[in-house]
Structures are given as C-alpha cells and as structure tokens.
C-alpha cells in the first residue's frame, strides 16, 4: 500500500512541484529523458499574468463557493424529508443515488440537451411562465447564464453522495433525542436547527471539506456540459484543472509543461488553504 502510494501519489506530487520550477522544459527531448536549461520562478509569474488563468480562478471559486453550501443545504433537507417517509425511502434513495453511478460526462451531455436554447427542458418550463428563452450554453450565452447552468448541473450531480452520507448519518441519531425535543415543544424547524444539524455536524464538516476539494477540481462537468471549447465562447467557463489540461497538452511552445505544473501547484495550495480554513472555522461548531 505504502509503495503504491509512493509510486502513484507522492512521487507525482513532488515531481509536479519540481517541474513547476524547470526552465524551458522539453519533456520529449533526448529520447524522452527531457531537457531543461535551469530552474526559475518565471513559470509562476507567467501564469499569474495570464488572463485565462484569472478567468479559471474566478470560475472555479464562484462554482465552489456557491455550489458546495447550496448542495449541502439541499441534500440535508432531502435527507430529513426522506426520513419522514419510511415506506418510499428505499425507492427515493435509489433515485437520488443514480447520478452517482452514472458517468459525469454522459450526464453532462444530457444536461446540455436540457439547456438547449430552442429544444431544452429548462426553457420549455420557463416558457410556461412566459419567460423568453435563455441561451444557457450557446455562443451568445452570458457568463451568468453559463455559470447558472454549470451550477445547476454541479449541484444536481453532487447531491447523490451527500444524501447517501446524510441519510445514514441520520439513522445513527438516537430517536430519543427527537422524542425528547418533541416533548420539549420544539417545532420541526427548531428540531432541524438545534438537534439534527448539530448532531450531524461532524459529517457536515467531512462533506463540506471533501466536496469543496471536489468542486475546486471541477473539470468533468465543464467538458460534459460545454464540450472541449470549455464554454459557450471558447474558454469562458474554464476551470483551474481545465487550465492545467490545456497547457499540459499545448505543444506549441517551450515550457508548457511547467506552466501546467505551476497551475496545479497553485491549485494544491488553494485547496490546502480552503481545507484549513474550514477545519479552523468549524472547530467551535462541531460537536463530536
């Protein structure tokens, strides 16, 4: 296990770190041994000046900071609601879990159809309320519309696992707390706020950290929804990981590999910082 971890996790991580400091790295030169002309911080300064990198940061942050809390709230409500319909629970659990076992890109394509300007389900429903069709993901789509579509898709896709975790977490809460709260005249909302959420808080922290990491690594959803153009207009929905991929496979100039590595390292530190903030902030609010 440790050897596998070293080969597939630690070595690539350290190597990416090293590569991000290579100057003029040509990985395929010298029969695959690669060639460099020295070490430099320039890779970082180059991507920090890159407009596209800032675009990817903005997209990723907006996506992560909105989709994670919203999806946690929705999945909490759904889990609690499922608890109150024990007979249909199994059925709905399966329904809600289906997205988890379905390929993200395939689902993304299905969503792309639903977001279609002329034939899509979303505009059809909006039409019932006399709202004129919105171009969600096409060439004329605004950044907001695209982000909205991506957000809806991301939240929907991430609900499955959260609901699974929360429903099993709810099962572990002693029923007597609810009986006690009921006798103590607590309303349903009070019970949710004062009993359920605090008692689930360790799970909520776990879910918020893992899904924050997942959201910061968003890529599949963008490809699935917008295709390789990464947006209605090329690159308008680019994320950090998509940025890494773009440069990793861009052979048009020297050092592309190191740019990708630098962006990946920046993402690594962003993720680290986010996780640290979450653990610190939540320390006072988590009840084990």
């Amino acid at each position: 296990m440790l050897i596998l971890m070293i080969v597939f996790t630690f070595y690539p991580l350290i190597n990416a770190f090293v590569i991000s400091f290579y100057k003029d790295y040509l990985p395929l030169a010298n029969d695959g041994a690669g060639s460099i002309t020295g070490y430099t911080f320039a890779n970082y300064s180059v991507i920090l000046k890159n407009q596209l990198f800032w675009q990817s940061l903005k997209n990723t942050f907006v996506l992560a900071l909105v989709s994670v809390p919203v999806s946690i709230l929705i999945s909490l409500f759904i889990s609690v609601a499922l608890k109150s319909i024990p007979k249909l629970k199994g059925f709905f659990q399966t329904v809600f879990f289906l997205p988890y076992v379905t390929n993200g890109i395939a689902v993304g394509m299905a969503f792309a159809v639903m977001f279609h300007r002329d034939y899509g389900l979303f505009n059809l429903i909006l039409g019932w309320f006399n709202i004129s069709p919105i171009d969600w993901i096409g060439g004329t789509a605004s950044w907001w519309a695209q982000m909205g579509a991506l957000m809806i898709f991301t939240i929907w896709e991430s609900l499955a696992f959260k609901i699974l975790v929360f429903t099993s977490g709810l099962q572990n809460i002693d029923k007597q707390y609810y009986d006690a709260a009921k006798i103590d005249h607590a309303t349903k909302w009070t019970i949710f706020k004062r009993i359920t959420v605090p008692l689930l808080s360790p799970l909520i922290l776990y879910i918020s950290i893992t899904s924050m990491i997942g959201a910061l690594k968003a890529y599949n959803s963008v490809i699935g929804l917008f295709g390789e153009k990464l947006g209605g207009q090329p690159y308008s929905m680019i994320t950090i990981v998509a940025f890494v991929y773009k440069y990793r496979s861009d052979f048009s100039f020297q050092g592309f590999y190191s740019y990708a590595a630098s962006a990946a390292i920046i993402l690594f530190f962003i993720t680290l910082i986010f996780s640290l903030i979450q653990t610190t902030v939540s320390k006072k609010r988590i009840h084990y």
Partner: protein
Amino acid sequence: MEIKMLDLTKIFISKDKREVHAVDHVDLTIPSGKLIGLLGPSGCGKSTTLYLIAGLLRQNVGQIYFGEDEVSDMPPEKRGIGLVFQNYALYPHMTVRENILFPLENLKVDKVEAKERTIEMANLVGLGEMLDRKPKELSGGQQQRVAIARALVKKPRVLLLDEPLSNLDARLRLQTREEIKRIQRETGITTVFVTHDQEEAMSISDEIVVMKDGVIQQMGEPQHVYDHPQNLFVAQFLGTPQINVFNGVIKNKKIFVNDMLISKTDLPDQPVKIGVRPEGFIVDLEKKSDFKFEIDLVETIGRDTTLIIEVPGNEGGLLDKITFKAIVDASLKIKAGDWVHFNVKPEKMHLFDLEGKLLK
C-alpha cells in the same frame, strides 16, 4: 394531577404477524401528588404504559384522563408531561444550562424568567455549579438529574421516568433514588416511574403497580402488596431472596408438604402451592415440629444467617426438586449437615391454587 386510564389497550404486531397485547385492558387510577412505581419483568408492558401516558405511543383502545382533562388523542407536547428517558436523551451538544433552557425557549418564555427558572431548577436538583458543563462531563447520576430538571422546568402536570436508575452503579442508585423521592416531595408533582427492580420500586414508591403480560396484577402500598400478594406471580416477584414455593396438599384442614405437617387451615381439601417468605421460618428448638430438613449450606452475612436447603424431588409429595432459603437468627449457630425443625409464621405463608390464585 390524577391520572386515570380506562380500558387502555395497546396492540403491537410482532414479526411473525401475531398481535401482541402489550397493554391489555388496563384500568388504573394514579392518585394526585404521589410517587408511583410501575413494576414488572421485562416485556410486561410497563414502559408501553408509560409511553401511552406520555403520548409517544397511541393506544388502540381506551382513554387517558389527566384530572378532568381527556388527553387520549393529544400529541405529547400538548399533554403537559415531563419525561425522563432511560438513557436521559440529554442533547449532547448543549450545556446543562442550554439543556434545561431548551423547553422554555420553545415555549417562548420571557428570557429573564427562563433564566431564573433554569437556575432555580438546577439548584433544586443540586447542579447549580455545573450549569456550563456538557452532559459528557457529568457522572451518570448528574446526567439523570439534569434530565429531571429539564423535564420539570416547564412545570408539567405529570412527571414520567423510564427506568430512572438502571444506568447507574449500585452506590449512585441508592443516592439517586433518595434524590428522586426528595425532588418529588418538594415539588409535589404526580410522578410515575417504571422499573423492573422490585427493591427500587418498594423503597421509594408511595404505591406500586405490579404488571405482567400487559395486565395489572396488583396495586397498593409496597409493604401491603408484599404482605398480601393476590397471586403467586406477585408473591414471587416481590422480595429478595424470593419467596419459597412448595407443592403441597390440604387434607382434613391440615397442610402437608411431603407428608410433613406444616400448618392448619380452614380451606377445603385440595392440592396447593404454599409460598413461605424466607423470613417466615422459625427454628423449633424443641424439635417438636414435623417440618424438618437437613441443612446443605449456611451463609452468614451480618446479623442474618441464610440456610440453604435442597430438597430432592420425589413422587407424591414435593414433585419437583427445590432449593429453599430460610433466614434465621445468626446466634443459633446452625451448621451444614444439621437437621433443623421449622415452624412457619402464619402471616408469612400464602396459599395459592395450582393456577397461582390466592386461596382465601
């Protein structure tokens, strides 16, 4: 507040689809301001009865009244009850103060008043110093008292306790049961508690209710029920060591066990079960009594000596092999292997028919 139950019945459907009458046509009146122990072996329906009073379970048949007020179809929060759960169900993420305050917040009691009542309640249960601790920082007995404070702070009409002492160790149990008695007396609230421990029920209850298979066997003051059991079950359930039961016969107004004459009676001839409390034996030093046994084992603890006697089974008399215990004065210096003649105190002997009904 007097609690009255009329024809109360609760039916559960078991796994193999059979109906189980957990509470079976119970008529019971619990007098106001008293501490009542609901007592019985596990599965006798005592906890179900408590939960029916609380409203956490709904009866299939019957009515429940609190005083003049019918509460049969009210949800638990409307009934004005305080319930202490077996494992206390204290909210683990809240401090003692928050736990006690919680019902008052939900009832939207004025903040200043709520604060005062919380402190008053914490003082009543002796936890005034511990208000800012979390439940897991308290001992079992202290948690128990927080649960009682939380149940009482909203001034309920009735206090219900589910196996209040079963999660405590022996020493705390003694302490806590005194504490419960004191709190009940100070507040004067009608209190019902459930227990399977007869000693616990007998020691603090004003009255006990003995249940079996969903049916009330007997209700009354603990000592009265102990001295006058209405059937064999009640006689056997109350008292440690258990009452000794002999198979015997009544012939010509004389009671025999194994052809040994024990006592006299006015009852007609019939086979009987004879219950004799361990403390109901008197050693006949003149050895005139017909009722004699060889002693197998002697246990002396403090001022009492327990004689343990194994009677081998034989046909005709004592049908089953039985072991019986007699508690006698330690000063008699009886040793294992001695033959001892007994007389039986009439008030400690109860005669039952073969179904276990008391013969009068």
